[in-house]
């Protein structure tokens, strides 16, 4: 037998072992199918956020990431993301950053979003066929440049540095990482030709990364700044949201801390209705109205929540999961959904449903009130409280253990004779003439007057 220089070939040729080596195809063409383009791009920006978390770990205050930035420059020919968030050391590059999957001994960043060790690689493969990563720290710099098609032909699972400078001082303003992707895939390049794509990406960045943006990380998309949109709830005390804090485990190392809010928001933003779920500040689910967050589930812990309906457009739930060990959080690898099998999530979901039920009850009552108001023409009292309420950011609102319906004085139902409502259509011109002759100020008044006229004349008292 000829001597094979490659590990993989040797193993596969051996008579008493089975080849279980992953193929490069798996990473280049298969894993990339599980993620959409926008989440893949957000994964890359998440890495910048993690860089910020790492270098500003000890900084406190409202804007700990002040002065740090991440810039996306996207054209149909090239994708480029650069940041000044600390850079990657050569050691990290050699041992962890370019490997597929997180190694067990990889250094942890507290409260980070990157967890699985696939984001950057998967995003690069998703976008194009050639990449160049340049990273500078205060004392090192490296460049890795790879043509993925060439690399795929090779059985070796290594990249070479095209430039490497260790133990050299670099000025602070040159510190950071730049990822350039060229030879974009056709479908990706076509997406980058669409203005709507950028509008959607901007909106997604704004929603998903509000935590890091609000902490001062300046993110730009082709020069346009991404602003954080604070989440708001009705601040009226009578409609204050319910709030609960949980910890799993209750005592011990690296717990998952959970904060739940459930209250009322603006009904004119129906896409925001439902539950928002965050893991380490990163928005995972936005306005979820599905069974995942308890909607339409048959009795969970004895509580039944109906399926979502637009009468619940005011409902807002916010669930924040935080842990120094991101491995404990209930997200999936694309960070677009939850791992609903997670025992932490299953326990929290029970609490979410408990918080939701009184809000659902309130909105049912509000809906009934609106129906009644249509009949009587009088403004409902609950509706009035809502329309007059102001909104405020979560965290700046006083909360309570459970949501309670505001006490409203029950309207006295006037006891009187049985009434009959009448509705009919007549020609506009004629109605107009009658109304004017009767000096009626409304159609209702005209109707009553015409009826009374007939009744007096033909039936009398």
């Amino acid at each position: 037998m000829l001597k094979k220089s490659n590990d993989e070939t040797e193993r596969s040729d051996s008579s008493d072992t089975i080849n279980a080596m992953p193929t490069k195809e798996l990473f280049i063409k298969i894993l990339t199918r599980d993620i959409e383009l926008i989440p893949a791009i957000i994964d890359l920006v998440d890495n910048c956020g993690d860089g910020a978390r790492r270098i500003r770990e000890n900084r406190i205050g409202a804007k700990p990431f002040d002065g740090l930035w991440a810039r996306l420059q996207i054209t149909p020919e090239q994708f480029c993301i650069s940041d000044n968030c600390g850079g990657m050391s050569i050691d990290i590059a050699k041992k962890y950053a370019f490997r597929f999957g997180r190694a067990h001994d990889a250094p942890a960043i507290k409260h980070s979003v990157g967890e699985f060790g696939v984001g950057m690689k998967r995003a690069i493969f998703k976008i194009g066929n050639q990449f160049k990563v340049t990273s500078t720290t205060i004392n090192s710099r490296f460049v890795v440049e790879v043509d993925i098609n060439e690399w795929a032909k090779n059985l070796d699972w290594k990249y070479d540095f095209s430039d490497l400078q260790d133990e050299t001082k670099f000025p602070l303003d040159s510190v950071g990482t730049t990822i350039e992707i060229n030879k974009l895939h056709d479908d990706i390049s076509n997406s980058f030709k669409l203005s709507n794509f950028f509008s959607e990406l901007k909106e997604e960045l704004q929603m998903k990364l509000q935590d890091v943006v609000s902490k001062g990380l300046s993110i730009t998309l082709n020069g346009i700044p991404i602003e954080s949109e604070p989440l708001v709830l009705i601040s009226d005390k009578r409609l204050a949201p319910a709030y609960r804090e949980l910890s799993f485990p209750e005592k011990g190392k690296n717990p998952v801390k959970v904060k739940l809010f459930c209250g009322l928001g603006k009904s004119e933003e129906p896409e925001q209705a439902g539950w928002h779920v965050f893991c380490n500040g990163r928005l995972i689910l936005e306005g979820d109205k599905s069974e995942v967050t308890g909607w339409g589930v048959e009795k969970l812990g004895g509580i039944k929540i109906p399926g979502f309906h637009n009468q619940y457009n005011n409902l807002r739930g916010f669930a924040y999961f935080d842990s120094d060990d991101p491995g404990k959080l209930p997200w999936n690898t694309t960070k677009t959904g939850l791992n609903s099998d997670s025992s932490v999530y299953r326990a929290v979901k029970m609490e979410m449903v408990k918080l939701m039920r009184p809000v659902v009850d309130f909105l049912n009552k509000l809906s009934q009130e609106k129906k009644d108001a249509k009949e009587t023409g009088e403004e409902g009292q609950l509706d009035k409280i809502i329309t007059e309420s102001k909104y405020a950011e979560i965290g700046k609102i006083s909360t309570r253990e459970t949501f309670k319906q505001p006490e409203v004085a029950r309207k006295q139902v006037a006891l009187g004779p049985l009434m009959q409502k009448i509705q009919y259509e007549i020609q506009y011109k004629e109605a107009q003439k009658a109304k004017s002759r009767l000096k009626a100020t409304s159609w209702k008044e005209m109707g009553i007057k015409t009826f009374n006229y007939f009744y007096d004349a033909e039936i009398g008292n």
Partner: protein
Amino acid sequence: MRNTNSDSDFIYSEDFIPEKEYKSSMGKFNYALRPAKNIERKMLCETFASLSCVSPIPKYRYIGFGSFEFVDFRLFHQRLGIYDMISIEREKNRKKQERVQCNLPYSCIQMEWGISNEILPTLDWNKRTIIWLDYDSVLNSEKLEDIRLVSGSLKSGSLLVVTVDSMPKNFENTTDDIHKTRYIELEKFVGKKKIPIHVKGKDLANWGLAEVSREIINNEIVQSLADRNSPLSTSSKISYKQLFNFHYDDGTKMLTVGGLFLNPTDQKKVDGDIFKHLDFIRADKSFYSIETPVLTLRELRLLDKCLPKSVIDSRINWIPKEERLKYKKIYRYFPNYTEVEA
């Protein structure tokens, strides 16, 4: 009565609508006196005629919102010989429907009762079509859905025209920044994910809303075509060539945008720019403003005598120069208003 998705905007004659609505919209919808609209209609008609290099015009179908006046239907039937015509009408009231029916000018117009959002998906799109979505309210998600559906359905050689109200709102009783309020209003109407990333609230003042509306409509068409084209071979891919970007103001600011849908074969037929003789054609964000001069009948006659050569003539110098120049631009399309018994 016009086919739009908002509830408050159909207005034609006094005995048609409740008093209150009529009064509030009087200024906006005085159809008889909308000269710019009249000019625009004729400019569109002249452009449609040029499509004969793609296919004979009588073979086209016209889809519009005829209302009960059917002005566009009359013009395109008379001038272009199109006889396959569909008018989408959202009016539900039977009496009003009867009036529409009685006003049908030709037997070849087929009525489709319902809102465009519901009707458009039910139509057969296997024929070359000229479709004019002549809305009279501002751009919103439902209109974008119409545009998306039509762009995804139109056969090569077809033409789509969209008209929307583009008057920036002035908000009373708000202490908030007007630019911000306008931006939020636009977000509410078209959705956050449709607003181009460079647009800011202050870009929506004056003709800004028209410009942004054009961009959003254009993006919707391009996006729809990208989705439609992605599985197709190069020879079947449809491209969009914008022809119209009109701004005009008959009391409210209006935008009309539109263009041709072409596969490579039909593209060749219109190459060499068959529209070169029409100076109102606009292929990009630059717009053509339809401005109507204020002139007496006598002045019109005198100016006509000088045209098309020049309106700089000592015999007519007493007519304001600005009005003369405006007239020169549009005189071929200028309406002849006379009082007649219809």
